[in-house]
């Protein structure tokens, strides 16, 4: 890298260097500890890519095959590492291709900083080549966005971007930089991290009296129930959370996003909530007397029918985002604050307790679910393989130590129901937005975010075809991800709904697949396709032991359904086991 020439400006005491806007962007990345960028070049971001040429020893750039791949990869990186994911894309189509990922990151609170190139400032609003109004397009799907037209703004704007993206409730930030600003030389005074914005309060002052009120409710409870979401992971409060439930002795169930915050085999962990969650946690939500919601937002897929949701319970809601408290479920006591701070306060005020009778209820329901649902799914009597037995074997082989990235649909629900996790940030999935095509690029990013872990992308035959082009990224950047396709030759979840709620009128869910093993081979990725049970374990083992990326396609039952299920419009206690 060329050394920056120090220029002492006359009359200015501060030492400055004369650099252009593009370099200032990369200097900001280095100051913020960025190591990996996911991106795709193009006309309006060329000056930044030109500067990147000189920074290749400090910043790793992963060339994706589509901008959507870049942003999902950055999401996977962020979710696996807890750090901010960084994306480069050009103006116009490059920027619009980011929109799905931004919406996904917004609803799942994933910290991202996306840099888009933009046409020259003097061309803004003239329908210039590859001009699109990216700021206005992305406003609803970003935590913050800003257009830079003058290079001198870049250091402060990027400092704000990184601060906003990964503080408070995290989210995606998009910075649109016009080409002239990227090229413009200016006197760079160095980079100062942002620590305060007067109109932005990421860390509220916790009000003790409400923690006390919450503690009192917990201490008086006979059937308390904890439900937790990704807030525990985002707040890096896994330890605090564990201490809290262990002292309180309260059974705890996770949302799909909160999964892996505690090990899945924790004695107080009673399973997953929601539409395809476990039986006990759903039914007993409507039986508990105090419902303690931590870092979760009562998504409709978790609550089912709202007017029949936990009406008997007093609700305690801990969240860092005040707009979540009372949004869907009215809280008896709301505790606004970072759970890393509020949980220890709460733990210190509660009594050490156990609820053997109450916990037994969860176990009884678990037994029932095992008998009617889980055991038959894991040990099918037919020749067709079930998704559940594949995931079960995968657990056995990874021993719960892998990062599992899922796409969206039946395989996602089955994986989240059955996957075992020992450590936090191991379950990466598109929860809120339900973005098909998420898994493959997210797995690429996850591998960069957690390089020491085995990363397995579990994907359906529908979702895989949505971002299949990222096999090129895996090939070129030699990303060691294991791709496990569960192929039921249908858009399975939609088919399931059509079967159950639309009289089996299978409308456009019959999806054909290419020969995935051949496709992978074309990308120099070895693969194998299997249909027989006796091949399963050995093939999974081969996949996991292979040094490098590997694709394993498993043919599974065509018309298998995911159960239990809370049908839409029903209460959580009306969950069906079959």
């Amino acid at each position, binding site marked *: 890298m060329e050394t920056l020439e120090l220029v002492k400006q006359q009359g200015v005491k501060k030492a400055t260097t004369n650099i252009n806007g593009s370099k200032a962007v990369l200097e900001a990345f280095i100051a913020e500890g960025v190591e990996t960028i996911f991106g795709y070049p193009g006309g309006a971001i060329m000056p930044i890519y030109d500067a990147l040429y000189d920074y290749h020893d400090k910043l790793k750039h992963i060339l994706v095959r589509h901008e959507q791949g870049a942003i999902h990869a950055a999401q996977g990186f962020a979710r696996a590492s807890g750090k901010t994911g960084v994306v480069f894309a050009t103006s116009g189509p490059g920027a619009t291709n980011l929109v799905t990922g931004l919406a996904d990151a917004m609803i799942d609170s994933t910290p991202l900083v996306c840099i888009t190139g933009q046409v020259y400032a003097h061309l803004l609003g003239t329908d210039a080549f590859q001009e699109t109004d990216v700021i206005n397009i992305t406003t609803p799907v970003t935590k913050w*966005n800003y257009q830079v037209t003058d290079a001198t703004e870049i250091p402060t704007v990027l400092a704000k971007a990184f601060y906003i993206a990964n503080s408070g409730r995290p989210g995606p930030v998009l910075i649109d930089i016009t080409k002239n600003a990227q090229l413009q030389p200016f006197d760079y005074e160095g980079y100062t991290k942002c620590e305060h914005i007067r*109109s932005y309060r990421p860390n509220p002052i916790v009000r003790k009296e409400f923690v006390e009120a919450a503690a009192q409710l917990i201490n008086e409870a006979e059937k308390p129930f904890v439900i937790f979401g990704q807030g525990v992971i985002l707040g890096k409060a896994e330890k605090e959370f564990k201490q809290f439930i262990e002292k309180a002795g309260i059974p705890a169930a996770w949302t799909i996003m909160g999964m892996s915050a505690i090990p899945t085999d924790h004695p107080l962990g009673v399973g997953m909530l929601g539409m395809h969650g476990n039986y006990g946690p759903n039914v007993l939500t409507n039986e508990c007397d105090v419902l303690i919601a931590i870092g979760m937002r009562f998504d409709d897929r978790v609550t089912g029918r709202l007017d029949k949701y936990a009406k008997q319970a007093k609700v305690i809601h801990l969240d860092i985002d005040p707009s979540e408290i*009372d949004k869907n479920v009215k809280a008896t006591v*709301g505790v606004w604050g970072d759970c890393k701070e509020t949980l220890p306060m709460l733990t210190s005020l509660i009594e050490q307790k156990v609820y053997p009778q109450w916990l037994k209820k969860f176990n009884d329901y678990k037994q029932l679910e095992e008998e009617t649902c889980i055991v038959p799914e894991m040990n099918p009597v037919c020749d067709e393989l079930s998704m559940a037995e594949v995931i079960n074997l995968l657990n056995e082989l990874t021993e719960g130590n892998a990062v599992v990235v899922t796409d969206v649909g039946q395989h996602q629900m089955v994986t989240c129901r059955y996957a075992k996790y020992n450590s936090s940030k191991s379950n990466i999935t598109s929860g809120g937005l339900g973005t098909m095509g998420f898994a493959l690029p997210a797995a690429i990013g996850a591998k960069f975010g957690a390089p020491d872990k085995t990363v397995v992308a579990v994907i359906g035959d529908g979702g895989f075809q949505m971002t299949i082009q990222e096999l090129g990224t895996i090939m070129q950047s030699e990303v060691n991800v294991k791709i496990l396709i569960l192929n039921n030759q249908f858009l399975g979840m939609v088919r399931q709904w059509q079967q159950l709620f639309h009289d089996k009128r299978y409308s456009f869910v019959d999806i054909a697949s290419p020969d995935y093993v051949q496709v992978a081979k074309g990308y120099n990725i070895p693969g194998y396709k299997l249909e027989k049970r006796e091949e399963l374990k050995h093939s999974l083992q081969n996949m996991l032991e292979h040094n490098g990326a590997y694709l394993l396609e498993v043919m599974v039952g065509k018309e298998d359904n995911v159960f239990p299920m809370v049908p839409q419009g029903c209460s959580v206690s009306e969950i069906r086991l079959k």
Partner: protein
Amino acid sequence: MSKREFTVTVYTENQVGLLNRIAIIFSRRKINVESLNTSPTEVESVHRFTIVINETEEVVSKLCRQIEKQVEVLKAYYNTEDEIVWQELALYKVSTDAIAEKVKVERLLREYGARAVAIRKDYTVFETTGHREETDNLIKALEPYGLIEFVRSARVAIIKGSSDFHERLKEFEYKEPGEEVVENEFLDKKEEVFSM
């Protein structure tokens, strides 16, 4: 809970794009904005939005929290009509001849507290400030005499129970402000959260 009129007051930084960011919070839920005023405040660099909508209090309180969540929004409050003092400004253009010929018009204007802001040979522009019904009534009264053009401004409103925002703003500047500034919207609502 039934829908009623609420006046939402938002203090923001002066930033390009913020109008859109706030507007889409309403349009996302298909809520029509009845009136919108945005202008600089007495404090340099701080802008104030006054937004009138018809909604239930439950929805308005959620909207306010979603507005306040925006990075560049300092505070958002909502008030019912009895909690504010509000005015709208209206301009009326009528034919000068009609005024000169029909003395009745002049009396009418005086009755409604209207003031002439421009008098030309062919037309005269009057101005009133007041509530919606008052300006509506004057339109009705003027119509028989030929109202050439009419325009009404958005609502501006003062919150009766407000305290000095300038002082509060100073507190915002500090990295660790007192509890008074970072009040807990949710928790304080039992008292008087949105009344400043």
